[in-house]
């Protein structure tokens, strides 16, 4: 039998000093609180500006918090906002929540602690961001939500700069239906939807159904794949749908970042062909990322709805400055976006953020 190792808390060798455990813990906690209080006391002067920096009022500081940088879209948005702020000589404090709502709340509170002049936030979702907005409101710091609005909540004030997901999706899908109509046959359709806790995903789903409603003679939707914004779920969903309906020939993805999953599934079903080739599946998406741009250039993608990242970044910063200047700012600023396709690729590529990312 393995011998019992020496251990201070062993049942066979109880440590008498353990009896004083609660007292020791209390002493330790008291000591740590005292020292923390001393540190706090010694630094009470720390208030509006970081040590060694210019006095408040000379240069504005804006906190930029993104819930994730996992997709090209968010990276492009992050860079566009930073470029916009730098261009206006505004100091930036950044943080990323890595998909964690609790961490995001802490990071926004950290901005409040640093007494930033404004906050630009990409919330994790529409509901869990409410306490973060409240924290900014209570501190009197204007807050702009980039690309993702918050849910309605009483007494919560924010400005949201968002693409009209529903309208832009409807326009994109209407273009795809136009292409489908030209083939003169009825297509079986598939739509990949995002995380339905994300208001953008809901808008895109609604936009899709707005467009296909009454168009059953051209597109008959036979499958809806829930992706939860997860590439692997999207891939397995499309594979399953193609097995159930091998004649699917019309696919709309609620985000371009899911295209690698769609392409993999189409390739495995031997259905990935260029426009004009026999068996081409009409493909459309939303976002305008580098993958979508390359697919357009290579002739595989019919259309995608492009969110104008540069417009949204510029309006987000301007909205903050306007609010700081005491001007009236609407609580919702719409990015009209645009549909890019083979017919207008040359003319529109300069405003497509995915084309710029690809170039870098």
């Amino acid at each position: 039998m393995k011998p019992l190792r020496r251990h201070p808390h062993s049942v066979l060798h109880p440590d008498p000093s353990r009896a004083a455990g609660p007292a020791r813990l209390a002493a330790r906690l008291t000591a740590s609180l005292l020292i923390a209080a001393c540190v706090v006391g010694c630094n009470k002067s720390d208030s509006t500006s970081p040590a060694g920096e210019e006095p408040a009022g000379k240069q504005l500081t804006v906190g930029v918090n993104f819930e994730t940088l996992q997709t090209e879209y968010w990276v492009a948005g992050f860079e566009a906002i930073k470029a916009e702020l730098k261009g206006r000589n505004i100091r930036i404090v950044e943080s990323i929540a890595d998909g964690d709502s609790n961490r995001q709340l802490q990071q926004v509170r950290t901005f409040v602690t640093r007494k930033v002049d404004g906050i630009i936030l990409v919330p994790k979702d529409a509901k869990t961001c409410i306490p973060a907005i409240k924290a900014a409101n209570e501190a009197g710091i204007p807050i702009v939500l980039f690309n993702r609005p918050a849910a309605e909540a009483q007494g919560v004030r924010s400005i949201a700069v968002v693409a009209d997901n529903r309208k832009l999706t409807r326009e994109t899908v209407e273009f795809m239906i136009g292409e489908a109509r030209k083939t003169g046959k009825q297509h079986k359709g598939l739509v990949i939807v995002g995380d339905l806790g994300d208001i953008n995903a809901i808008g895109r789903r609604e936009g899709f159904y707005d467009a296909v409603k009454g168009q059953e003679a051209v597109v008959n939707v036979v499958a809806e794949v829930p992706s939860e914004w997860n590439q692997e779920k999207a891939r397995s969903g499309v594979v399953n749908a193609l097995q159930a309906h091998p004649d699917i020939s019309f696919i709309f993805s609620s985000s371009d970042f899911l295209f690698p999953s769609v392409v993999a599934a189409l390739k495995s079903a031997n259905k990935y062909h260029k426009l004009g080739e026999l068996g081409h599946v009409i493909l459309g998406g939303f976002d305008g990322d580098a993958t979508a741009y390359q697919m357009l250039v290579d002739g595989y993608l019919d259309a995608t709805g492009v969110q104008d990242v540069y417009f949204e970044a510029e309006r987000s910063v301007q909205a903050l400055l306007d609010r700081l200047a005491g001007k009236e700012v609407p609580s919702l600023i719409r990015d009209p976006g645009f549909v890019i396709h083979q017919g207008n690729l040359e003319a529109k590529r300069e405003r497509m953020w995915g084309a710029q990312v690809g170039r870098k």
Partner: protein
Amino acid sequence: MASLPALRLLKRALLADHLVLWLCLVYSAALAPFTPGFASWGNLQTILAYAMPILVVSVGLTLVLIVGGIDLSVTSIVALASVVGGKVMSADEGWLAGHALAVPAGLLAMLSVSAGLGAINGLAVTACRIPPFIATLTTMMLVSGLAIWLTLSRKIGGLPPGFVRLGQELWLAGMTAGVTTWLAHLALSCTLYGKWLYAIGHNARAASVSGVPVARVTFFTYVVSGWFAGLAAILFTAGLETGNPEMARDNLLDVVGAVVIGGTSLYGGRGRVSGTVFGVLFLALVDNSLNLLGLTFYTITMVKGGAILAAALTDALRNRLLTQE
């Protein structure tokens, strides 16, 4: 040999009970002058508000690690409890929407579901003799899937103000986390149950021979861990005013990391609740200060990963030193 005293000092430091506490204090003192806003009351509140739910989950996990197990499902239990609470209490879609008993019923449901899931883990480990890693990994997957299925990934808002106060008023959340942590500390250090935990974690066979009811104690510890996850779910859900099927999904590394940094051995048989308190505090301090310093997300992640790795290596070293003695 000139290096001998230095080695002795290093050995003493490694075996010291208060290593992480001192680390927290030295770290805070070193960074405070250079980190804007770090040493302020507002920031201390931010750190505490962030750390308290994580502390509660971590305390439950500490008990499981001491008994020689592991519970990978704790954050998934938090997510499911969050959803269950939302489903019971939400004014938008709750089963008891607007009812006077919505909050107590919601709290009871969250704690019961969590303890029940802990019991399933406990049964799997003790009755079915499934290795804890596999048993709790399976529970994690099942419970995560269930939380998403119940909500179809939607977040549940409209939680009653009385419930939301539990997570948003610092003194209330602090009292909840503080009292339960204190009770766990007392249970571990002053009761027979605590001594049994250490004995089982050290050597389950020897403990059994000595008359310790190994299976019952282990089972109960998983139930307690689940219950603590449920309590954390209350703090998380109230703090964010949302029942969320992804709640705490990304916190598992923080929780395990904090417990290990706090000196609880991954090999079982060693650990203290106070160590976990300081482990959680240390990770929260690192996270908060590096954010305040304006470091990028990638740097913060690497620093935190490095701290957890260092703690795991220290644990291995401590273990070797203890067995040599």
